[in-house]
């Protein structure tokens, strides 16, 4: 039997799981579930949870604690940890949250049509930083917080890839 702490959409689930010949015995926050799994491919499978049918697709690296579950046309991000490790971490007061990113990345691929700030500028939250044209629409990228521009990685007239670094704050 293995025990995990799973977080989905802000909800925590304490899951205990055991394999039986006729399916998996699952305890989900203490509620018993019978789960049958049929593989549909590399990452896709059909789950029957107490008979309820769900097609799911779990994507992400083998060792990642953050994964994405595709189901019912939706993409659901989730985190998983060994239950005991999670308890230890919680007791020690650590957090799994990533450090706050000082890097401004492109929310979409597109063409840089305007850079409204220069290196060294102080900007305030909500101030327009750049304008990107994508699919014939101009999109204004605004500052998510206050800060000073440390570096600009893009140029007007050049294209930028999705999640490409555009600008960095100090």
């Amino acid at each position: 039997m293995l025990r995990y702490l799973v977080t989905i959409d802000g909800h925590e689930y304490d899951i205990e799981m055991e394999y039986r010949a006729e399916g998996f015995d699952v305890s989900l926050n203490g509620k018993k579930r019978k789960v049958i799994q049929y593989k549909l491919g590399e990452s896709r499978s059909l789950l029957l949870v107490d008979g309820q049918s769900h097609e799911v697709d779990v994507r992400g690296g083998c060792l990642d604690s953050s994964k994405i579950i595709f189901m019912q046309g939706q993409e659901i991000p989730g985190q998983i940890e060994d239950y005991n490790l999670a308890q230890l971490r919680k007791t020690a007061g650590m957090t799994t949250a990533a450090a706050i990113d000082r890097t401004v990345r492109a929310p979409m691929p597109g063409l840089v049509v305007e850079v409204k700030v220069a290196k060294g500028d102080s900007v305030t939250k909500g101030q327009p930083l750049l304008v990107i044209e994508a699919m014939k629409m101009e999109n204004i990228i605004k500052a998510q917080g206050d800060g000073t521009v440390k570096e600009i990685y893009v140029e007007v007239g050049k294209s930028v890839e999705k999640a490409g670094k555009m600008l960095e704050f100090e």
Partner: protein
Amino acid sequence: MKRSIRKILIANRGEIAVRVIRACRDMGLTSVAVYSEADCTAYHVRLADEAYLIGEALSSESYLVHDKIIDVAKKSGADAIHPGYGFLAENATFAQRCADEGIIFIGPSPKTIAMLGDKIQARRAAIEANLPVVPGAEIDAANVHKALETAADVRFPILIKATAGGGGKGMRMVEKAEEFEEAVKRASSEALSAFGDGRVFIEHFLQRPRHIEIQILCDHHGNCIHLGERECSIQRRHQKLIEESPSPFVTEKLRQEMGEAAIKIARSTGYVGAGTVEFMVDQEGHYYFLEVNTRLQVEHPVTEMVTGFDLVREQVRIAEGDVLGYDQSDIRFSGHAIECRICAEDPEQGFVPSSGVLKNYRIPSGPGVRVDSGVVIFSEVPVYYDPLIAKLIVWGKDRDEAILRTRRALDEYRVSGLKTTLGFHQAVMDNATFRQGKLSTSFLAEEYPDNRFIQLDDTVRETAAIALALDKFLRARKIAVSNNSSSRRGDSNWKQFHRRKNLRNFGGSR
């Protein structure tokens, strides 16, 4: 007058090119595709009888270049050009060029396109034809002071629109005078880059109006009918997202009135072909002329579903000089149709475009379900063009059935590799206000002020949690087995499980 069409060049890409190619096949005509370097393996290229490369990815180097399109038309021996929507569909110069080259342009005359494409002239035509219009006026973006005076006359809130444009491009809503200058500049610059024409005009902005439009068909012989209305109120930033026919708001009387108004402006402008007369309708049922789109609309399939007409076929027949062959009394409406635009966009991130390769792509089907898709599995969605990848169109005997069936079809749809608006549409189909038919162009802003569409229920969350735990559990078991394969205890159980798993692994990875 009668000119036979045997071969059609489709001067477009994506789902509308596929739509027109399918119509060609259904009529026994030969289809010619054109494509840019970004569209080498696009579905419209694969589906057409012939296909020719016309230049680089940017549409200004390919799909918008008149010479290249005309060249391919001549080289391939096409009798006619179908422009789809967007690109050259409402370009009078191109339509004239086709006429000069002896190629049939499937659409109205260059003169009609030019006149109705200019929103100021179209507005004037509507006033002359006695159609109600909202207060508005042309402005000079360079003279902001003067423009602001005009805006005050028209009354805030106002809507800034591109004189040459359509499809919401260059459109801006301005609530207060202080925001006016920046908005005019931005709208004019967008209009310039989108249409090569920076002119803009302003209109009084109606509160919570509905967007309702009338489909018309007019032949070369003076016959003109309408095919009822489409309600397209579910919009964001003036981009339609969901359309339906009939409108849950329109009564038989209003349909007749608006239909007659649409035919009136069509007749007064000598309209020939398929076209759409757009109206804003306020909550009291007063309608105001908005514009005429001189082309096939994105949302034309909902009209097809409730009338049984194939609008592309009718366009071709009209272009050939055929007589319509039916009059208004022959038109029958049956059931209810809904269209969802499936766009490569992330609704949760303010509908930012998404691009990439479709790692999985499975369309729904079954009773009452139609998908007009420009992509197939493994297609690449390039960054260069409109994010619309497909349209789901669903027919039901009434609006309730159409909504439930749309919900079902959305659930069956599978896309991965890209963000899409599928989840957004699921949310709207479940929305109580939508189900009651209480629509307005403010619907999204009112119902989803924070752009959060997806509400996970307990079952979905719990199942996702189990899926994640199971995924990790099975990896752990796998590692345990390979580390401990000589251990006897528990091994037989694992082996049995493993055998079953293999038996059941019908996946694509082997």
